[in-house]
């Protein structure tokens, strides 16, 4: 079997162009013509069914493992950290690391944190509610996600600002500007490693029931985790859980500002929160782009994909593919097929229950207390690459009671 479509019919994108947007009209129009596009660097997948199958196909590995090397970073702290990440390893090593990390992120454990999530959300809103205005990222999204993470790893919450800044710096590693930002990323990593070593020493002296204690025990007691892996795992947990939720909350509010009836509905019916979280992520995921690399020659729907080809799985077009979910507007009352905001397959997001549950608690409280939110001025946006979301989201609202 060969390439079924002629080259002229297949869309083409330059995925290295900093202006390339996975949510652009151009990408959505391409999806109507073809399930894939050619790019300057592999194949971009645009539709639901193919994205779903490729995420889970074990003939492909996670595609970002060589990302730093592709940008000329072949040694040093960033390169080493990246090579140790659960995202970069496959097979038995991946399985060993994933099984060590999984229990700390179970739904049951995350549910135990719910009363604390509610109190934290209320406390943060109290600080600005009377004024009827706030900068939503620094006033809510950032401290909420960072302080939740502090609780998860058992760290003094007063240190949330440092953690958040370092995470933002590290997050630059997932963008196309990784080469230019290397120094800032490595500075963030050095700080985060310092924190990891501090936590490891502390839990060695006084073990608790938290995720860090469990990982330290896996290293010290059973030798199932090397010291380097232990450090990398802790930095990944702290970084991965913070930047993503912060951005996803900002994206959620942006969506609801554009859909005031849905915000009102959520305020009246907080039981809709689980669906609201899924619908927000379907429409406006913070992780817009995952990759896979073929480890052997494949044929997908008549398209030959040689071993070594990178497949760019773009979640915004796949999540809203009319062939799979219909041409449906943003609606928090409808249960839909799963979105790809948490990736999928062996590398499915480890912390998805934390993200889901802390947002399920935050959104209805916000909807009740920030009535009729509107933009005070245009938001400042991060480029759509890696982790996406507003950097500044200045809003005004009518203060409401949390009754």
């Amino acid at each position, binding site marked *: 079997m060969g390439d079924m479509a002629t080259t002229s019919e297949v869309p083409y994108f330059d995925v290295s162009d900093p202006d390339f947007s996975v949510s652009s009209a151009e990408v959505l129009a391409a999806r109507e013509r073809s399930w894939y596009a050619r790019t300057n660097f592999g194949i971009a997948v645009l539709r639901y069914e193919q994205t*779903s*199958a*490729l*995420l*889970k*196909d*074990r003939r492909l590995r996670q595609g970002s493992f060589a990302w730093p090397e592709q940008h000329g970073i072949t040694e040093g702290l960033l390169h080493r950290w990246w090579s140790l990440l659960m995202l970069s390893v496959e097979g038995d090593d*991946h*399985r060993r690391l*994933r*099984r060590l990390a*999984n*229990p700390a992120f*179970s*739904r*049951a454990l995350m549910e135990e944190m719910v009363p604390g999530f509610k109190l934290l959300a209320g406390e943060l809103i109290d600080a600005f509610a009377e004024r009827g205005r706030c900068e939503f990222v620094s006033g809510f999204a950032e401290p909420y996600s960072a302080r939740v993470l502090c609780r998860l790893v058992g760290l003094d919450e007063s240190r949330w600002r440092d953690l958040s800044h370092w995470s933002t710096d590290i997050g630059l590693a997932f963008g196309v500007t990784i080469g230019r930002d290397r120094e800032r990323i490595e500075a963030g990593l050095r700080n985060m490693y310092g924190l990891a070593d501090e936590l490891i020493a502390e839990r060695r002296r006084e073990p608790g029931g938290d995720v860090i204690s469990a990982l330290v025990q896996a290293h010290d007691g059973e030798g199932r985790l090397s010291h380097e892996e232990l450090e990398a795992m802790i930095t990944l947990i702290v970084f991965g859980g913070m930047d993503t939720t912060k951005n996803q909350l900002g994206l959620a509010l942006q969506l609801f500002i554009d859909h005031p009836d849905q915000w009102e509905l959520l305020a009246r019916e907080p039981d809709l929160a689980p669906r609201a979280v899924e619908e927000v992520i379907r429409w406006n995921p913070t992780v817009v782009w995952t990759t896979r690399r073929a480890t052997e020659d494949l044929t997908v729907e008549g398209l030959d994909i040689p071993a070594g080809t990178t497949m760019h799985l773009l979640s915004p077009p796949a999540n809203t593919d009319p062939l799979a979910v219909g041409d449906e507007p943003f609606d928090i009352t409808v249960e839909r097929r*799963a979105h790809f905001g*948490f990736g*999928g*397959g*062996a590398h*499915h997001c480890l912390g*998805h229950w934390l993200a889901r549950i802390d947002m399920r608690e935050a959104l209805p409280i916000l909807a009740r207390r920030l009535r009729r939110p509107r933009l005070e001025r245009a938001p400042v946006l991060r480029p759509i690459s890696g982790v996406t979301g507003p950097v500044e989201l200045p809003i005004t609202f009518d203060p409401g009671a949390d009754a």
Partner: protein
Amino acid sequence: MKVTVDEQTCDHHGQCMIACPEVFNLVSPDRLEYVAEPDESLRDCVEEAESACPTLSIMIED
């Protein structure tokens, strides 16, 4: 011990197979095979799979 997987909600991520390959096998991206009545000695591993499932599709009956 009796295991059932809800085929309506199973999304074939294969996390169960990472946790417990003795019982779960994702044959292809759309087909999961599993041992319906695994040996009691595999209980820890099956419970680990149940907890790791992103769609909560695994049920254990005693």
